[in-house]
């Protein structure tokens, strides 16, 4: 019982100044593949997010990425990428005009392709990021950051072989958050 109370107190203290927030980010994403797949992709990304947390401490962040994929790697016309991410954010308050943060989490997404045997490829990702919030006032802050993702795609089926491709993505983005 004491342990439970202690954990609840700890959690409540972590979120003592927590707020619900919504945000929008826009960025540029570069993707490079592994597994001897000589391919790369450079695209723009928009991300809608919502979360709950303290701009000076901890937050849980749920985001939806829409990547306007410009490359054609898996098929003649690879389409957009959609991803859902869940990330843990730790921000710091150094009594300056900005609050640096780092984040870590995971996600999953889907890439539209136009192959005979597959019309989409699912993928999972491990995400880490760094950046900073720049509070303008109590309810509005700007955000700039960098995010790294390690992606593992669903196996590509060519009948004679099924290969799972991996990639790294680097994203630089900026955006804003509204906190309530």
């Amino acid at each position, binding site marked *: 019982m004491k342990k439970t109370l202690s954990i609840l107190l700890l959690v409540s203290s972590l979120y003592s100044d927590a707020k619900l927030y919504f945000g929008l980010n826009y*960025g*540029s994403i*570069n993707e490079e593949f592994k597994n001897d*797949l*000589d*391919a*790369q*992709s*450079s*695209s*723009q990304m928009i991300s809608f997010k919502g979360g709950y947390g303290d701009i000076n401490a901890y937050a849980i962040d749920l985001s939806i990425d829409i990547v306007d994929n*410009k*490359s*054609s*790697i*898996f*098929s*003649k016309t*690879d389409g957009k990428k959609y991803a859902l991410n869940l990330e843990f954010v730790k921000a710091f308050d150094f009594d300056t*005009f*900005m609050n640096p943060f780092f984040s870590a989490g995971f996600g999953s997404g889907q890439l539209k392709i136009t*192959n*005979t*045997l597959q019309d989409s490829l699912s993928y999972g990702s491990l995400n880490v990021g760094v950046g*900073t919030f*720049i509070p303008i006032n109590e309810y509005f802050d*700007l955000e*700039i950051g960098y995010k790294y993702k390690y992606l593992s795609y669903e196996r*590509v089926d*060519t*009948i*004679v072989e099924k290969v799972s491709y991996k990639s790294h993505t*680097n994203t*630089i*983005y*900026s955006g804003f958050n509204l906190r309530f």
Partner: protein
Amino acid sequence: MKLIKNILLSTTALFFISCGGDNTEEAVILNVKSIQIVKSIDTIYSTDAEKEDAFSASVTFEDDSTKDATEFVTWNSSNTNIARVVKGTIYVGTQNGGDTNISISYQDLSSDSIILHSKKLLDYNISLLDAENNATGKYTLKAMGTFEDNTTQEILKNIVYNVNNSAEITIENDITSVTIAIGETNITSTLFNDVTMTKEIIYTAE
């Protein structure tokens, strides 16, 4: 405020710099165009043993390159009582002669079908090889059949032997043998579970 401006300007500059990355614009992964049967036979006999590598299949990609897909596709037979194909090997069914359509498929892809004809067995006889008069021992049973195209061939499938007395039937490497004990032994064979295709040998050992 000035610092905020500087940061935003730096970020914007970094953003535009990073926009200039390369894009791969030609699919690196080969897309499947079609699958087809590339090697086949059109005739078998209804009592043939398995025929390995009788069929093969290939996949054609959009750049017109091909790869062997015999082991990866699903082989379909319109009448498995006549014959079926697994990874290119033909297995005769339990029906005496007829036609079946063989095709391949993979997910929603399928090939044209080809007709495989199984020759019908018309008559046959069985014999005990190297059997010495009235001696006990282990003898090989052999069945020879005459088919619709008047060819004569050894029967390797769809034949069932029965023996009475204390004789024993053994099958090793598709060779059927009978071990005969003292007394009168009736050896009967039936083809395709058809009682009209039954033959009998009576052998007496002392």
